């Protein structure tokens, strides 16, 4: 899904560990809504995702992430 810009998986019953590496590797992603699932330790996953987004290839736009019910821009391009 190299072209994916908007991913909405919120309000389902997904479980397991949030696939932080795969999510952060999507080069065009603009928004990820993941809240209200059964993922384990979402607070830690959110932090890991923020870190992975910062460490990933520079993007021309911000990335909005909703993992615990509130939206946060976990990535802002430099000069944003």
């Amino acid at each position, binding site marked *: *899904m190299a072209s994916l810009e*908007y991913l909405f998986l919120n309000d389902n019953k997904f479980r397991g560990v949030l696939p932080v590496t*795969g999510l952060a590797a999507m080069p065009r992603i603009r928004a990820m809504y993941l809240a209200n699932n059964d993922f384990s330790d979402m607070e830690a996953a959110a932090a890991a995702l923020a870190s992975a987004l910062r460490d990933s290839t520079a993007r021309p736009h911000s990335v909005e992430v909703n993992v615990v019910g509130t939206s946060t821009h976990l990535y802002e391009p430099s000069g944003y």
Partner: protein
Amino acid sequence: MLKSGLVLIYDGLKGPLWRDQGPGWAASDRKRSVSNWLGVVMVEGLLVGLKLTHNNLKGDVDVILAKLAALETLGGVSAIQELNLASNALTGSLAPRAIATFTSLMVFCTPFNLLTGEIPSTFSDCGALAVLNLQGNSFSGRIPPSLGLCVNLRVLHLYSNNLSGPLPTELAALDKLIELRLWDNHLTGPIPVEYSALSRLKVLHLANNELSGEVSNSK
């Protein structure tokens, strides 16, 4: 033949109550060419499009589908490419046999009506189909795996219905798909790993279902 068919549609869907009578449809205005009627698209004498949106059409959707299918099978009268009936008060279900007759269909939109029943598997007979918008109705049953045969599909909006069952693995074959919006249904099971092959997909909206399983890193 075409004009009388359109008049039957008007009469069968409470035409006098349409919000916009437009040119052509009302009994007092039918002398003009059908190519000038509201929402009618003609190309080289063929009916290729019917766009009657937000217009208070009331009644069974089969009034339109059966009549258009009959025109389609006559030959030389219609080759429907676009049917857009968004935001009306149409009831009933989509007849599989009628859908299968629209072999030139590229855009089929009936969102925000009162439609019920299953989504016909015969959309797979519409090889040119690029846009299928059925959101905001009460369709039930499963998403037909045969939609995976609509290889030109770019937009698939089925959200806000009563669909259940799994996400068909077959949709992974839609390599031109840009938007897949299935939110607000009762879909179950995992996201097929095969969906990672959807290389042009920009929007994947699956929120508010009963999907489960782990989300793999290959998504």
